[in-house]
């Protein structure tokens, strides 16, 4: 063991390339992504915002059971997906629907489970997007396993593993980062620090100088980035992906952002934070900032965003008749005798019900 840890510690402040007013930051020490990349990001940001707001509205209309929105965090969502190659993997949480969709998953599929169906909706192998994980931080060791398996087979896969600030307190966060570091697995851990875990503010979650400071304890580099600056995110995450692919091992990146809405529709954020705190963050909006920098009017991208919103509305307004047999179909590769018996019992009940009508 060596005492030299400096190269593993994050910078004192988060990397920002475009400030809240849309001005490039002088002396950022990193090149800005080119305009084409930023235009592409802006288009996606606007669609992601529309998706978030459409989904939220659909909860109110009873078409979704619950929706944890990433409104305000779209820069993290889009950058996390855009820096990946086709053969890479994304491991999302429940809040990362926008990233899942940016990766190519049909938004209606992406909302399947949140609608009230019994499975995640998409085929994880089609776009290499894991089913989203709700038990916090449990997806992180999975991400390490996928990366390690790829490395054993000599494939150039990199895995992007998402996690919230609250999730960093769980034991699985610790175990995953440690395994990744020891195995030198090509994983980029991205913490979206949105300052809250439901009602619990960051200060009650950790006393660390920053969440990125957790890296050094595992021997992996930590970095901090402005989570509302998609240019900085593309640069920092892009770099991390390149290094991971080159065999330099895992990295930990903390994106500082803010949860603009309640935890989910079921939450009442007024019980634990002031409206003014939220207000303060509207000035740092990732979309406003990027369109100012690019001098592009958002409306240029509205059509696509509306198309997606309409697709989501259509998809979710279509009622899917529950198919009882499906309850038993995928518990095992083939149902156990016990499940066959239970499925038959249910089928019989339903038949009798129909007959009695």
């Amino acid at each position, binding site marked *: 063991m060596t005492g030299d840890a400096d190269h593993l510690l994050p910078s004192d402040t988060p990397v920002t390339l475009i400030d809240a007013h849309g001005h490039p930051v002088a002396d950022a020490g990193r090149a800005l992504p080119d305009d084409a990349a930023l235009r592409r990001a802006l288009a996606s940001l606007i669609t992601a915002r529309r998706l978030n707001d459409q989904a939220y509205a659909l909860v109110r209309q009873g078409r979704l*059971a619950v929706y944890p929105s990433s409104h305000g965090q779209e820069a993290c969502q889009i950058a996390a997906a855009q820096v990946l190659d086709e053969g890479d993997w994304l491991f999302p949480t429940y809040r990362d629907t926008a990233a899942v969709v940016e990766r190519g998953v049909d938004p209606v599929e992406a909302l399947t489970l949140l609608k009230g169906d*019994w499975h995640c909706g998409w085929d994880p192998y089609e776009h290499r997007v894991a089913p989203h994980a709700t*038990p916090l931080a449990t997806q992180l060791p999975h991400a390490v396993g996928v990366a390690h398996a790829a490395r054993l087979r000599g494939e150039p896969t990199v895995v992007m593993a998402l996690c919230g600030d*609250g999730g960093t307190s769980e*034991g699985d966060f610790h175990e995953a980062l440690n395994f990744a570091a020891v195995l030198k697995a090509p994983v980029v851990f991205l913490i979206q620090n949105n300052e809250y875990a439901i009602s*619990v503010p960051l200060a009650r979650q950790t006393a660390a100088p920053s969440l990125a400071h957790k890296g050094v304890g595992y021997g992996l580099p930590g970095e901090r980035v402005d989570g509302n600056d998609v240019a900085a995110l593309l640069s920092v995450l892009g770099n991390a992906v390149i290094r991971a692919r080159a065999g330099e091992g895992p990295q930990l990146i903390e994106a500082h952002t803010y949860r603009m809405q309640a935890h989910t529709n079921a939450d009442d954020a007024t019980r*634990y934070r002031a409206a003014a705190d939220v207000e303060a963050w509207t000035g740092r909006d990732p979309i406003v900032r990027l369109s100012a920098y690019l001098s592009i009017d958002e409306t240029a991208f509205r059509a696509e965003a509306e198309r997606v919103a309409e697709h989501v509305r259509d998809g979710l307004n279509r009622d899917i008749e*529950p198919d009882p047999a499906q309850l038993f179909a995928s*518990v095992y590769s083939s149902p156990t005798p016990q499940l066959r018996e*239970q499925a038959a019992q249910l089928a019989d009940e339903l038949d009798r019900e129909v007959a009695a009508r």
Partner: protein
Amino acid sequence: MTRHEKLSMAQALNRALRDALSDDPTVVVFGEDVGPLGGVFRVTDGLTAEFGEDRCFDTPLAESGIVGVAVGMAMNGMRPVVEMQFDAFAYPAFEQIVSHVAKMRNRTRGRVALPMVIRIPYAGGIGGVEHHCDSSEAYYAHTPGLHVVAPSTPADAYAMLREAIASPDPVVFLEPKKLYWSKEEVELGPRPPAIGRAVVRREGTDATLIAYGPSVPVALEAAEVADREGRSLQVVDLRSIVPFDDETVCAAVRSTGRAVVVAEASGFASVSSEIVARVTERCFHSLAAPIRRVTGFDIPYPPPKYEHLHLPGVDRVLDAVDDLQWEDS
């Protein structure tokens, strides 16, 4: 002095916590979002404001840590009441619960008691998404050293939580989510103990329904319907899974000679298996038919659209009653 108030189960639990915090300075409440938010089900509503941050506080998001810290606090003179946000989110704490909470008294020859309560909003019926509706009682009930209880009424919720907090033993306190909003008149004074005591909720002569927690109202409703159809069903509410009240349950079953166990959890190797096994062992020759179980299927808890298919409902209970070999054979 005994007071009465009309309260929902969530309010009754909140009142129990408030009264315990008032009466006993060693009681502390902590967990995820139990502070200013008052818990996702508002069971801890107002406690931080009323008793201060030292008595009711939010912790980092780590269930094993929450339970482990509670163990230490209980070792050192406090009576911690911790909340696991949802049933499936108690699993990270499983090692602490099984290897320490359940064993500390025994491995210290009774010298270290752990007077602590682990509150778990549990089971389904509220249209929750995956991981939010598990009926996890079997995991705890199978683990020697824990008391495991589940109230089915606001009055029991109040009294049993007070009793659990006062208990020198660790208690896994299962709160049926779907009953949080059920209301009734609640007696707020001292009551005879309920932990370890089942209660007959409805008298009946033809068969006995045995239920606990969220399944008690289902059993009662089934008995109501059966009554209209001319069959008299007795309903026993266990209230306490560990300790188990063999006396009340067996007396009930012997009085009717037939029984159906109703529980939301998957049936395989479950509390309902235990009830069937132990009642059969004890009452074999009083039984006119094998005891039937109406339980959740042996599948992961299904999401909102499907839960009505999975949960034991009145029809399924009555089907099971019909199956109790009423005809001469």
